[in-house]
């Protein structure tokens, strides 16, 4: 009986943790994608800084349940954005990589048939 109750508690905790993780990652990535959408219309140093600071505030938590390769790709694209602020072609290319990576991270946390299979 004790093992059964412990198992129920563990299962509930894991379920709660997973749901919290999904909601947190979904919310943070959506906020980042909103900024990216604005940046697609034209590069801006202020928005790029905002994007970077928002990413850094949630990066550690997201990396707990995300593959390191995805985190590194997003991080690299984020750093390149600052570097290519005055070169629109390269800036847009790095922004596209960042958007694609963020969408991939979001999809891997979301509950859908595609993410399951």
């Amino acid at each position, binding site marked *: 009986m004790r093992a059964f109750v412990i*198992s129920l508690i563990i299962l509930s905790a894991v379920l709660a943790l997973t749901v919290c993780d999904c909601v947190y990652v979904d919310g943070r990535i959506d906020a980042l994608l909103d900024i990216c959408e604005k940046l697609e219309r034209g590069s801006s140093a202020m928005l790029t800084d905002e994007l970077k600071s928002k990413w850094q505030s949630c990066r550690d938590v997201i990396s707990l349940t995300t593959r390191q390769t995805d985190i590194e790709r997003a991080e690299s694209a984020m750093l390149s954005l600052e570097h290519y602020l005055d070169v629109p072609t390269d800036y847009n290319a790095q922004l596209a990589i960042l958007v694609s990576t963020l969408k991939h991270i979001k999809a891997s946390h979301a509950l859908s048939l595609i993410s399951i299979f």
Partner: protein
Amino acid sequence: MLTILIRIILVYALLIGTMRLMGKRQIGELQLSELVTTILLSELAAQPITDDQTPLAFAIIPIAVLLSLEVIISFTVTKIPALKPLFDGKPSVLIRRGRLDFDEIGRVRISMEELLCQLRINGISDINQVDYAILEQNGQLSVIPKRAEAPPSAEDMSLKVSEPGIAHAIIVDTKISDYDLKRLGHDRRWLEKRLAHHRVSLDEVFLFTVDDCGREGLIKKPCAHS
């Protein structure tokens, strides 16, 4: 490298805890659901240890879920026996009252050579000696010989025998097991008296056992020769 070291320790502790919670059966005879869980556990545990790109949560969360499901299912199956065949299957009676059940043998896909081999492992040389042979859910064959072929019991021979129970190891290599001593309802003072009765000191004892009837067994440590 330090990350991998810490990961190994964490995953090892997690697996030990998981196996302990699953119970002793997991270590020896595996039921179908337990076998599946064990195979999955080893795979899940190995991945984040060897691949530092994978978050540890990718092992911890599935292991926790598997452990919980395994315990919840085994508890539910114990409470609702009708569910047991669904998770663990049913035992198959291959020989019933000395007659081979060919349908059942065909259904479990066991060859006659395999059946004979299993009977020999169970100490049966002739299939005609078998009353029942049952293939259990864990894959082991239980063999019940015909009464006439079985060795006579004390009851068959109308003999009165006492039940000694098991021998509890009270002292192993000069170390006293207070747990076993307490289970037998004795204490260290009693033990000292018994050792004095046997004319030995604690340092001389290699093994001292007491069975449930109170019969004692003593093996002294070999004398050290330089």
